[in-house]
């Protein structure tokens, strides 16, 4: 498992390349590696934009499936309305509102735990084709 802190924009690059590297080691093809790296980029940016800082865990264990699991944890303001946040085009900042819904589409599973004022934990998984 790799654990990386998000404190500045350059950390997003680090996380993106670590995730891609692990995806490659696990055996994902180039398109899936790109999907994973892109989703990770969106979610890491969310942490940086909304919470200022946080941490990311990248692991090659998402039992019972084979694949990659990435967890984003922050102590930011939380997501007020998760359903709304998962709507294409919805954004509370200047962004296009593609981050969360886009990342969900690129991955196979997404789980969001959020508490207003306490923080957010987003877990995504991508499974190897059987």
């Amino acid at each position, binding site marked *: 498992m790799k654990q990386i802190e998000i404190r500045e924009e*350059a950390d997003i690059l680090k996380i993106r390349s670590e995730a891609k590297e692990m995806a490659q080691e696990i055996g994902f093809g180039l398109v899936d590696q*790109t*999907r994973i790296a892109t989703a990770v980029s969106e979610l890491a940016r969310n942490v940086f934009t909304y919470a200022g800082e946080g941490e990311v865990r990248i692991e090659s264990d998402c039992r019972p499936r084979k694949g990659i699991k990435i967890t984003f944890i922050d102590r930011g303001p939380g997501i007020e309305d998760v359903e709304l946040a998962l709507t294409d085009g919805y954004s509370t900042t200047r*962004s296009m509102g593609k981050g969360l819904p886009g990342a969900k589409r*690129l991955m196979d599973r997404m789980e969001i735990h959020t508490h207003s004022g306490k923080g957010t934990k987003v877990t995504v998984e991508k499974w190897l084709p059987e």
Partner: protein
Amino acid sequence: MAQTSAIPILKLREFLIVSIQVDLHDKMAEQLQHDILKRISETSAKGVLVDISALETVDSFIGRTLAETARMAGILDAELVIVGMPPSVASTFVELGLSMGGVRTAINLDEGYDMLEAYIEGQISHKKISQTEGEEEVGDEADRD
């Protein structure tokens, strides 16, 4: 000295050529946008080729910044063509729910260059036609006088 994105912007005749060989974070993308627009205004470039063949990911921020840059370049009368997006990046980009919204793209530098030349030739002949039309109008008025 003002900070730059450290991504070289080359001038080749009336065009600018930018090849992004490093992974971009958000501030770098914004800086690059700024640098490209500045160079357009300094050089009066008519076209810009932005090669992204080395980019491993184009997420919503980079995608938006590139599309914005293209529109801004258009306002400065320079046509911007995004060149060489890898297929895996293109498919992921669409799955993410993004589009390049009217931005010109080409498969490689050669195609992008041809596209710019054709565009500029079209613009010149268009200008010539409207100039000729203008002259005729003046001529008509002169006849009336």
